């Protein structure tokens, strides 16, 4: 069994293609369920954000799973599979798990270190889980992935420094004022970045927003959008002394606020610090303002520079994050390997039990003159022989569970007893059988031997009941 991921992201596909492939909640669940119904996978999660659409599948044949994912995504988006093919990436096994971990760690994001992806993945998983599309493997794998995302965020500084102009401005304002509640921001000129910055500031608790513009109507318009108050442009100087943060983005060809104006404003401010952001080109604020005591002036170039610096800082942190992903991959791999053993033992026991019952059935005519007691004894005898024969292989399989070469044993057993061929006809049943025991054994702590032990008990129970 393999974990497979197939999808497109901002790295491989244009925005247009991403838009077409985007799955809303309902569509995501629908696609997952279709893939389960087709039998190419026994667990599925669809993740769709503005930067990626990905299908995570757990199935026996990774190639078939990939092809199914491709055709479903293409059909849903209404594009030819051939058209989608070049943009589609897919990984299986370790590669797929590593990819999932990198996605939740935001290492694969457009802005490395962004925080939204964890919530998005959580929602996607939750929905698949509620829709019955996940079982043991994905329940564990996705929870683990969310933990990895959390670990990366707490153990590295990957999301620490802001990487957009508006959030960098807010960060600097926080460095000056500590907290923004009880502070006033004055917006001069109704530009888009100033609106964005004002929204950011508001999210950080700033309550009083003043907006001013040469045309009062535009000021009123912006004030309404950001929940502030429009003030006449003529009173700029009066409001300047009340403002702790000034954001300027007018299209004026000359300085709107000069050093003298700021100095005059400070006379009424009792020297509380003032943070001024100039996002206009040409500049609105006299660079000399930065020389005024307690005034901190940042223009668009300064902020860009901050953003650049923070970006390279995040890239450095991303290397730490990659190491965490590697560690986590190793730990989840141990568990996955042991998981392969569990259904194999289960199927082996089922197959042998099938033979035993078949043989008893076949001989039922000849055994018809036996008393019920004698028949029960024959039943017990055969069961006991089967259990004795299977005891050593079961123990040995449990021993190798979690080891590197355990897949060799799994393969050998499956080939020798032809377990895969027998399973094709009754996929759902086998899927169930594989899914239940470890789930039951999960509270034991997930030791490699614990789920295996759970399986054996479970099957023995069923065996005697049937007999």
């Amino acid at each position: 069994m393999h974990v497979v991921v197939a999808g497109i992201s901002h790295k491989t596909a244009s925005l247009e293609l991403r838009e077409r492939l985007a799955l809303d909640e309902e569509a995501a669940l629908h696609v997952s369920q279709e893939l389960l119904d087709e039998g190419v996978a026994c667990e599925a999660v669809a993740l769709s954000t503005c930067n990626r659409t990905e299908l995570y599948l757990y199935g026996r044949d990774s190639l078939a799973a990939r092809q199914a994912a491709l055709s479903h995504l293409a059909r849903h988006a209404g594009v030819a599979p051939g058209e989608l093919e070049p943009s589609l990436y897919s990984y299986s096994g370790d590669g797929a798990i590593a990819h999932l971990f990198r996605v939740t760690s935001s290492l694969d994001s457009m802005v490395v270190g962004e925080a939204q992806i964890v919530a998005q993945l959580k929602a996607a998983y939750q929905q698949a889980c509620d829709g019955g599309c996940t079982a043991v493997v994905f329940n564990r794998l996705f929870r683990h992935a969310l933990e990895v995302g959390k670990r990366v965020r707490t153990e590295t500084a990957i999301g620490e420094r802001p990487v957009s102009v508006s959030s960098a401005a807010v960060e600097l304002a926080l460095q000056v004022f500590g907290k923004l509640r009880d502070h006033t921001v004055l917006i001069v000129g109704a530009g888009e970045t100033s609106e964005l910055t004002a929204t950011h500031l508001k999210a950080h608790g700033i309550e009083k927003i003043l907006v001013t513009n040469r045309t009062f109507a535009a000021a009123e318009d912006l004030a309404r959008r950001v929940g502030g108050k429009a003030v006449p442009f003529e009173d700029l100087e009066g409001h300047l002394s009340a403002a702790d943060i000034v954001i300027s983005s007018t299209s004026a060809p000359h300085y709107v606020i000069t050093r003298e104006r700021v100095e005059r404003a400070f006379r009424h401010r009792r020297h509380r610090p003032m943070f001024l952001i100039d996002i206009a080109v040409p500049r609105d604020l006299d660079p000399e303002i930065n020389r005024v005591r307690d005034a901190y002036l940042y223009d668009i170039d300064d902020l860009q520079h901050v953003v650049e610096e923070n970006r390279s800082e995040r890239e450095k942190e991303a290397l730490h994050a990659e190491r965490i992903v590697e560690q986590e991959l190793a730990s989840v791999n141990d568990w996955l390997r042991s998981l392969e053993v569990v259904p194999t033992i289960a199927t082996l026991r089922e197959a042998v039990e099938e033979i035993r019952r078949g043989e008893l059935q076949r001989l039922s005519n000849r055994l018809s003159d036996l008393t019920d007691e004698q028949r029960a004894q024959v039943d017990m005898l055969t069961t006991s022989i089967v259990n004795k024969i299977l005891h050593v292989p079961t123990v040995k399989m449990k021993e190798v569970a979690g080891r590197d070469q355990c897949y060799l044993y799994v393969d050998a057993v499956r080939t020798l007893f032809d377990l895969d061929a027998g399973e094709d006809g009754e996929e759902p049943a086998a899927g169930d059988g594989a899914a239940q025991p470890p789930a039951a054994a999960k509270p034991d702590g997930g030791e490699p031997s614990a789920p295996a032990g759970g399986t054996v008990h479970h099957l023995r129970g069923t065996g005697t009941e049937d007999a």
Partner: protein
Amino acid sequence: MDQASAILIWLAYLLYAAAFAVFLIGFFTQRPWMNRLGLIVAAVGLVAQTLGIIFRGVDAGHFPFAGLYESLVLVSWAIVLVWHVLESFTKIKAVGLYVMPVVLVLLTIALVEYNPPTGLAPALRSDIVIVHVSVMLVAIGCLYVAGGAAIIYLIEEALLHRRKTGGVLGRLPSIASLDRLIYHATALGLPFLTMGMAAGVIRAETFKVPGWPTDPMVLLSAAAWAVYVALIAGRVRGDWSGRAVSWLAVTGLILLLVIRFAAIPYLSGFHTYGG
């Protein structure tokens, strides 16, 4: 008893060193809980030091402020105490990182200059002297913390004005919170400084100490007092920028350090207890 005291002071010293290490690691790895851990470790150190001081006092039979060892142990104790009180009030991150080195330096000097407890010189056997010393301790603790905060303020202000936003800037407390810390610590320390100086004057007058008004230590203390009065007055009236306030706090700190390490041991005619 003296042995117990010495062991406790050493224990406090080691705990402060450990707290400093924790703060340092926390500063570079950006773990907020490290700051809390450091505070707890330092608080345990403070308890050990308090017990050490009490044992020392019991052993010597008097309030242990005589000699360089005892006075430095007391000063460092006062700084840690004041810092803990201010930290719990103002909740400013990373101040421990700047307080701990000062405390460690003072305690290192103290431990190097260790001397066993002795009886008190006759001139120091007076209630007013004890009041003078204990009130001064609180004042010095506060004003050292204010001076430390002012140094960080000046560094941070320069970084912000020069747009050096990478590196340590994000790990420093905000400009506004440092400004508040300087103000609060000075506002708390100044009344104690005033009381301590008043007690000193009363004592000098009652014992008719000759020439005390022109003693270098007294003059320097008066200068420091004036600096702090100016700081508070200017800050309350809003005349002075945060930078000016910080420079005043640093000036005051320098004066206090000169008094402690130059005036008391070498220049002063009557503050002989400092050794």
